[in-house]
């Protein structure tokens, strides 16, 4: 216990006290100083907040789904590589960590922008009128999220795939199963724990995003973290800012619990 004390003090200063203050700000009325739900009420009764709440949920889950669809094949491919090559290829998967979102947003313009590579190709093949707006809207946000979150989905799944007992796949093959069947009936079910782990990481992270929506999204892609920023800096309504922060944390917590329950309901143990 003695050795934990400095850490506890540190955590107290940088975590517990500030979080406590936020809770305080959310639940205590500014005028009366009494405990109140008025700010929470305001959140749930005004269309603006509910809309942003919905957007946050939508973007989180849609983003997670798309990341999963993109990331699973990558993990699958990596699992099949010899170890050395796999290590080098993994460096590429980790690229999002090396680059800042501000720099990336420039790169996205070059690729996805109105005069960018994709639109140039589209117009080249389909004619002048076939430009598509891929930035400053939900599509742009999705690109940003998938790019950022790819490592978080690839590595949990990869670890799972590498740990799977190869004898199971061999046995299935000898019994006559095609590659497709082996994937859907053996590999995929056994990889569900990895998928859940990845989805959890992605959803919780995306819920709290605010730079990506503000740089790559449109005006309706505002998420709860952007709203917190707005209330703190522009409107100076720190009670509502606290409320939104608290709700965001609660949402992440609820999702975590739900996912844990779902996983516990399945008896996919470790492979023998």
């Amino acid at each position, binding site marked *: 216990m003695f050795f934990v004390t400095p850490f506890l003090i540190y955590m107290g200063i940088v975590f517990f006290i500030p979080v406590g203050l936020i809770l305080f700000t959310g639940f205590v009325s500014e005028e009366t100083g009494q405990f109140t739900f008025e700010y929470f009420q305001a959140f749930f009764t005004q269309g603006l907040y509910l809309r942003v709440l919905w957007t946050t949920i939508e973007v989180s889950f849609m983003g997670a789904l798309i990341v999963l669809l993109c990331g699973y094949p990558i993990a699958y491919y990596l699992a099949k590589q010899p170890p050395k090559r796999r290590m080098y290829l993994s460096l590429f998967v980790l690229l999002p960590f090396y680059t800042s979102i501000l720099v990336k947003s420039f790169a996205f313009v070059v690729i996805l922008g109105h005069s960018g590579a994709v639109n140039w190709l589209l117009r080249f093949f389909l004619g002048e009128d076939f430009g598509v707006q891929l930035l400053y809207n939900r599509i742009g946000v999705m690109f940003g999220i998938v790019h950022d979150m790819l490592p978080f989905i690839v590595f949990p799944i990869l670890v799972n795939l590498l740990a799977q*007992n190869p*004898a*199971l796949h*061999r*046995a*299935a*093959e*000898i*019994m*006559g*199963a*095609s590659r497709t*069947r082996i994937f859907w*009936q*053996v590999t995929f*079910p*056994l990889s569900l724990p990895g998928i859940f782990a990845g989805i959890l990481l992605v959803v919780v992270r995306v819920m709290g995003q605010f730079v990506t929506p503000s740089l790559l999204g449109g005006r309706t892609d505002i998420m709860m973290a952007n709203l917190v920023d707005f209330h703190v800096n522009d409107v100076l309504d720190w009670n509502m800012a606290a409320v939104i922060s608290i709700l965001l944390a609660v949402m992440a917590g609820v999702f975590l619990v739900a996912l844990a329950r779902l996983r516990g309901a*399945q*008896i*996919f*143990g*470790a*492979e*023998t």
Partner: protein
Amino acid sequence: MIRPNTADTTTPMVWLQGVTKHYGTVVALDEIDLEVRRSEFLTLLGPSGSGKTTILNLISGMVGPTAGRIWIDGKDITEMPPNKRGLGMVFQNYALMPHMTVFENIAFPLRVRKLKSGVIKTKVAEVLDLVRLPEVARRKPSELSGGQQQRIAIARCLVYNPSIILMDEPLGALDKKLREEMQLELKRLHASLDITAIYVTHDQEEALTMSDRIVLLNDGQIEQMGTPDDLYFHPRSLFSAEFLGDSNILSGNIEEAGPTVTISTAVGQCRCSRACGFAESGTPVKIMVRPENVFILPPGTSDEHLNKVPARMVDTITFGGVIKSYLQLADGSSMVVQELTRAGQSVPEAGSEVYVAWSSEDTIILPVEGRIEIPAPPS
């Protein structure tokens, strides 16, 4: 154990024709020619790295040969992918799908073959009866014991009636008693169904117990191939002699070749009543005699047919049903004598000088290096 007559001159079930397998610079198999007869129980026996699992992998299709062809039931299947070969395989760690119930595990190959659900139900029930586990269909593999899991693995193998079953040290993970039970179980199943079984093990006792024929592998080559009796009573190399059963080895030179062979050794002269076809007078050879064929000579006995050698008692150990006596010979080499335990037995004290003897019929002459390359007698 009574073995059925597997004399069969029709097409072999499996034929490895000149098969070589290299892994980089390592030669796992060196021009193997092997025929597996229909309905026989063939064991691939050998130490780790001898190539036995490689042969299994080649037959199953998991790896392809570097050279040579593989035939199953008259068809060249060297290029055929594993999932089309219609074989069955049992693994050492069972390889049961942990996320499926026992029923689903066994039903898996049937679903692959697109059988109707009613048929599947029947077949699964049948095979569960066969392995004597009718109650466990709803359970998951993790809820079963090792022996039960192995039986389910076998059931899964049998349910779709493959013509060949490959077994890769399937009993290795079980304890001794269970292993012996399962050995009998497997033999029973093999006898009642008309299946060709290819069994891999490093346990020579297991091989001797279960096999119709044994293929002994050494470092990628076939050391000796034959019935258990062949290998046990007529080993053709030092390796074979030492791998199966216990052996006492002496070095010597042939003095007289002929119907009876005389060999001079450092501890005396020995006679062997079997003609030694591969060596002439003056060739250095090894003599082998099994411990159960050696006995400590009661004082005063003498017999020309016996080989007699002075020895000193070192130790005696009782192994339950047998007693082994360890003795030292004049030149320092050791000799083991094995007898069945009897009540009231008296054994000479340690340190006492005695004579050990064995019949000249039980002497086996082996080359110092390599093996005797006579084609095995038909059996």
